[in-house]
């Protein structure tokens, strides 16, 4: 009974603050508080899980994006890829934050002293050529994954799309050269 109370209390605490507490703390003064006990019992009555939610995420199947030699600078250039985004949360929800290698994390490719801005879009389904625009260092919340395995080795082979756009207005005034940059994607559960 003590073990069951501890698990239920941990689940309760995760919902209240999202922070873990040492089990010894729960077996001490806090769990003895009448309100905590009441809430814990309420969770038990509602069939709360016996173990804590893991709230884990994973992003895999990423590939480099190569635009190659852009012959037509008067048209937008788009590269997209499907990847695996796994979210082990109650809702399979997650948020994603993208950061480029430009100043302040800007989405920017560079070729020596020359720079070229690009846009990043994200879709929470695979096979997409457009999605929600991402701003550097700003999480895009409210995403839900359909992945059922952390590396998509079972179930859907991919669960999200990363789209990168080089706008014609940028390309048509860009200096000639070979541009490169790194885009970092940080995923968090929600």
């Amino acid at each position, binding site marked *: 009974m003590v073990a069951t109370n501890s698990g239920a209390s941990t689940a309760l605490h995760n919902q209240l603050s999202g922070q873990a507490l040492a089990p010894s703390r729960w077996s001490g003064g806090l769990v003895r508080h009448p309100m905590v006990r009441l809430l814990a019992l309420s969770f038990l009555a509602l069939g709360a899980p016996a173990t804590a939610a893991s*709230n*884990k*995420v*994973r*992003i*895999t*199947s*990423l*590939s*480099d*994006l*190569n*635009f*190659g*030699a*852009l*012959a037509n*600078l008067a048209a937008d*250039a788009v*590269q997209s*890829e499907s*990847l695996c985004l*796994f979210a082990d949360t109650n809702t399979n929800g997650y948020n994603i934050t993208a950061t480029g290698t430009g100043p302040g994390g800007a989405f920017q*490719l560079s*070729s*020596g002293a*020359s720079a*070229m801005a*690009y846009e990043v879009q994200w879709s929470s389904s695979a096979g997409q050529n457009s999605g929600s625009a991402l701003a550097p260092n700003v999480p895009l919340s409210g995403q839900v994954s359909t992945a059922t395995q*952390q590396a998509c080795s079972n179930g859907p082979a991919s669960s999200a799309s*990363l789209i*990168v756009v*080089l706008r014609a207005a940028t*390309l*048509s*005034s*860009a*200096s*000639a*050269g*070979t*541009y*490169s*940059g*790194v*885009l*970092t*994607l*940080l*995923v*968090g*559960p929600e």
Partner: protein
Amino acid sequence: MFAGAPVHAASQGTLGATSTGSVTINASVPNRIQLTGLTDVNFTNQDPSVAAANSQNVCVWSNTSTKGYYVTATGSGAASAFTLANGAATVPYAVEWAGSSGQASGTALTTATALHGLTSAATNPTCAAGPTSSASLIVRISAVNLQAMQAATTYTGTLTLVVAPE
């Protein structure tokens, strides 16, 4: 991965409270150049005793690292000569080019012969932003040639300009 791209493989995230992955994005922009802002040249009721000249500011944009370019002009006369014509009657004209705008004279061009070593100050392909022009085109008809023209007669010709990055 195309030639010249840095060697960097995408990194995959691990399972955890957060997960981070990264991709490298590569793109190559070729040399490009654009010539805009050209207007027709009209010499009307010219005094044959005074040489005629017309200069105009044009926009040349080059995206090379040095913003360099060369220009080649050809006329519509025989063997691409710089001549105006009215039927069988022809009159030669001269063409000059300056690598900056607002110039009344420049380097003389020879038909079909490139003038190298020019540099553009344009920052936009059509000079819609930054400098509004970046070069000068000057066309001249000498007094001698004006005096060879028949009065009240229109002579026409086409001057073609080709710019290329360098």
